[in-house]
């Protein structure tokens, strides 16, 4: 065991508050992540988006299902498009409830729109063949391996929906999954 002289009194005096402060700050950072998400799940506006799923694996967070959200690929003629949209820049998508229960994109804006309908914040990737390609920060559903594989194995005919809780700024959190309109997984707050 490598033993060196114990730290001098000033160093020891400094070490205790230093370590306590770091431990508190790191715990607070984790706590803030949890409470922010829990509040969004509890209070957010709920929308359902149509999606499909495949099962890859993340090095740190394990198995997950990639959710291929239908609104990541939009026909240009189906939505109103803000001419100020730039490739790689944020996009705000206003949503409208569809007849089949899934919410659809209504308009794409470069800045937060003054809208009463729910808004989803994403990134405008690029335009190709009159199609607008978007990405959103909730296209991964982390699950134990068996459940991720189960989601991937769903029949193509089954329509999968992801339930999102949205705040007023376009931020969202995954709240659950639906298959053919039936709730199959619901995320607990904690």
């Amino acid at each position: 065991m490598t033993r060196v002289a114990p730290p001098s009194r000033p160093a020891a005096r400094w070490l205790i508050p230093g370590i306590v402060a770091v431990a508190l700050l790191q715990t607070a950072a984790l706590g803030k992540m949890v409470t922010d998400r829990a509040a969004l799940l509890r209070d957010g506006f709920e929308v359902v988006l149509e999606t499909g799923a495949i099962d890859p694996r993340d090095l740190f967070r394990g198995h997950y299902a990639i959710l291929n959200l239908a609104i990541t690929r939009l026909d240009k003629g189906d939505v109103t498009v803000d001419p100020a949209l730039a490739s790689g820049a944020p996009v705000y998508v206003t949503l409208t409830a569809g007849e089949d229960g899934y919410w659809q994109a209504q308009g794409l804006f470069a800045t937060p729109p003054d809208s009463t309908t729910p808004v989803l914040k994403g990134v405008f990737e690029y335009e190709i063949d009159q199609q607008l390609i978007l990405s959103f920060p909730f296209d991964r559903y982390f699950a134990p391996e068996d459940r991720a594989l189960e989601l991937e194995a769903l029949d193509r005919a089954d329509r999968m929906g992801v339930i999102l809780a949205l705040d007023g700024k376009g931020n969202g959190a995954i709240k659950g999954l639906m298959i053919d309109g039936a709730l199959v997984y619901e995320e607990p707050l904690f």
Partner: protein
Amino acid sequence: MHIKSKNAVIGEALEDWRDRGLLDTDTALRLRADLDRGGQSFSFNAFVITAGVVCLCFAAMTFVAANWDQMSRLTRLMLVVLALWTAWGAALWTGLRGLHWWHQGSMLLACGMFGAGIMLVSQIYHIQGNAADAVWLWAVGTMLGAALTRGRMVLVLAIGLFAVWHGMQIEGFRPDSDLNLPYLGWWGAGAMLALWLQSRIAAHMTVLALCFWLISALTTVASPVLAALILGGLALTAISGMLASLSGPRLLRGFEGAALAYAVLMLGIVTFYLTLSLTEAGFRDPFETETDPHGWIIPTLLLIPSLALAMLGQFRRWALLYDLWVTVAAGVLILGVHLVFPLPLLPEALLLAVFIWVTRMGWRLDQRSLRVIGMGGFILALLMVYGVTVGTLIGTSGFYLGAGVILLGGAWVATRLDPKRKTGS
């Protein structure tokens, strides 16, 4: 070439000098005591502690990744937070008792648990957003830990995490738009902490992280040749700065030698790149310099610090004055060849000359790392010249003949001029 540590070599030399009567016993003992004063050197025990901590961190990460549903999410989160507090508690306990490596290892473990906690919360709430954001948060928390606890291993982890954060964003870069300049701020904070904590390993990590950013910048900008010239200018400035510091003030507290080696290595890589970009299979855009007629300005301005240091050295009669002037000359030659006169075989000859200069500097400063870089680079440069000129072997033969004659001629002149020659040195 020594295979033992510096302490072991000096210790054995002290014993030998004392046995042969060259050193009296009292002086030898005092020197030995001074040598042993650094009780915090990285021992085998320290290695085992570090390896154990790294294993525990990996255990926590894979525990999170397993998404083990036999345990509730909240229990898993509490477990990780409990591990975090236990590790910080152990760090406090070992720190107060002077168990240096256990103290450092415990703090590293605590910051590893912090990272595992971030991953776990991201997994629980399906937060992916930009995955780099999670690494950034981990890096910030870890650097804060290093600053508040003076944790050297924690600082190394923080610097590495910021480099990973930068690397994770490279994919999203577009030429001319984003060099991730905020990274330099975090890098600077890490460098300042490394200097404050006098941590050699953190200093190494700092330099490596900067080299990583510089090379990534080279690959993302629209004018890579111009960027390489700028990078070369920065490397020359760093070489001059280190030579100046070695001549007197030692601002980096003994890290100058290592920093000099990194700067020389960077200059070698850049010169290689510039030379390759001129070959027939190369990738230099012939219109790049034409489209940017002012492209020469920044690389030329970057020679000013080297020139200023050389003049200051001349004024103050610094010991490494000669090397400072040769550095300026190297800069002028590199810029001249790659900006003004990219004549056939001239860049290749310059590349060989750069590595001979580096090798020479290694001998002048008695620094093995420079000699290794110089000789290794020289061999690679020879192979590169051979490789890119296959098909015109008679020309290659002429090049090697000329280079060989010049080298042997230079060595002969140097031998004749060596004042120690007559004493058989």
